[in-house]
């Protein structure tokens, strides 16, 4: 395993190791507004996907346009 991979594993392990000790400053029961569908990064996937396609085919820019998942920490 290359040095970069080792560093990446070590960094991820350190990050994960800290999980138990971090006290969330927004408690799970305080996330009702964040859990509201209107706060979603992608409320309707089929609409978002078509809209991305409309722009993608007419623009040179691509990538990092959402749709890659990721949650809101609402649960």
């Amino acid at each position: 395993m290359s040095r970069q991979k080792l560093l990446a594993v070590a960094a991820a392990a350190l990050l994960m190791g800290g999980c138990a000790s971090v006290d969330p400053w927004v408690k799970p029961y305080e996330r009702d507004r964040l859990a509201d569908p209107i706060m979603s990064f992608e409320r309707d996937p089929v609409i978002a996907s078509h809209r991305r396609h409309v722009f993608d085919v007419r623009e040179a820019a691509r990538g990092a346009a959402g749709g890659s998942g990721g949650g809101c920490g609402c649960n």
Partner: protein
Amino acid sequence: MPPAALVAGAGATDMMLRSYKGAVVAIVLALALLTPTLSAQVLPDDRLDLLYHFYEGGGMTIQGPSLLARKQIGSSVSVSASYTVDSISGASIDVVTTASPYTEKRTEISAGVDYLRGSTLLGFTYTNSDEKDYTANTFGVSVSQEIFGGMTTVSMGYVRGFDEVGRSDNPDFSADVDRHAWRLGLTQVLTRNLIAEVAFETISDEGFLNLPYRQVRFLDPDSATGFSWEPEVYPNTRTSNAIALRSRLHLPFRAALQTDYRYYADSWDIDAHTAEIGYTHGVLDRWTLDVGYRYYRQSGAEFFSDLFPFRESQNFRGRWKEISAFDSHAFRVGVNYEFMAERRGFLERSAVGLSFERILYDYRDFRDVRIDADPGEEPTYSFEANVIQFMLSVWF
């Protein structure tokens, strides 16, 4: 940048990419091994969406249905499938001016599986897009992990694409494009009302990257119009990086403010800025209203020219308006109505949505050669497009 420097630049970027790819693989491995049993993520909702989409602009009309279904199997697996058709009629300015053929129909199918284990969500996707002269197959894998008591979600993904390029006027023509994409994302709960996301994506293409029909024009004193046409030639590699920042702010009276920004740069010397702002307002429980504005600006590719000085004046040459410098403004309104908010039989709830978007494109270098003028003196091209989406959704 001269073409040789472009290729050299792409080589250096490829080396960086290999290191980056190794790091992404290692982090995915570490996340999978160290999955803690913290707050749980959830699988996406079981739902069926039926969309009718309509696009009209620049002489073209594209419309068709799109269907997306998602269903949970057991408590840790969710499967999805989608089907989209684009029926194309009319002709864009490229077709009008150089009589190049165009595809009349595109179909896209995709399938996906998500697997949930504790606070880790693993996803696998396959997509096939098929046109008469272009086929694209894409495989993707992604992992997302909640950490810090669900305050932070780290996600990453890798996508591999295999495209086949053909010519509808020459069945013997065939060329390939290989594509790799690496994605990293971080979503962070900031306050009770604010959530933000940063996303990064690198995409690397290698192969036949221009469409075989497209032409560039060059000054030709022997032609009656003062110019003639010859085929485009693109570099066979392209590497791009994009970074995006997004936020969602919950406002009183059940409203939300969305702000998005993306910066893009690639090895063809194109850079682009995308900025978007949106406002969503929930009304009377069942209605949701959306308004938004999106601004986009890009520079042109290093080898783009509206009018080359003579035939084969440089190794790489392109006159595709999508790689020229332009600005775009888009205005969007949408309404959503939940017509069945309570469970009936196996249906949990149902909604309909209608949205309209008007997009203005203003090209800075690409000229409208349909207008009679001295070569290079024609007005720059611009057009307006309308996009309509009508959606029916059921959750079950």
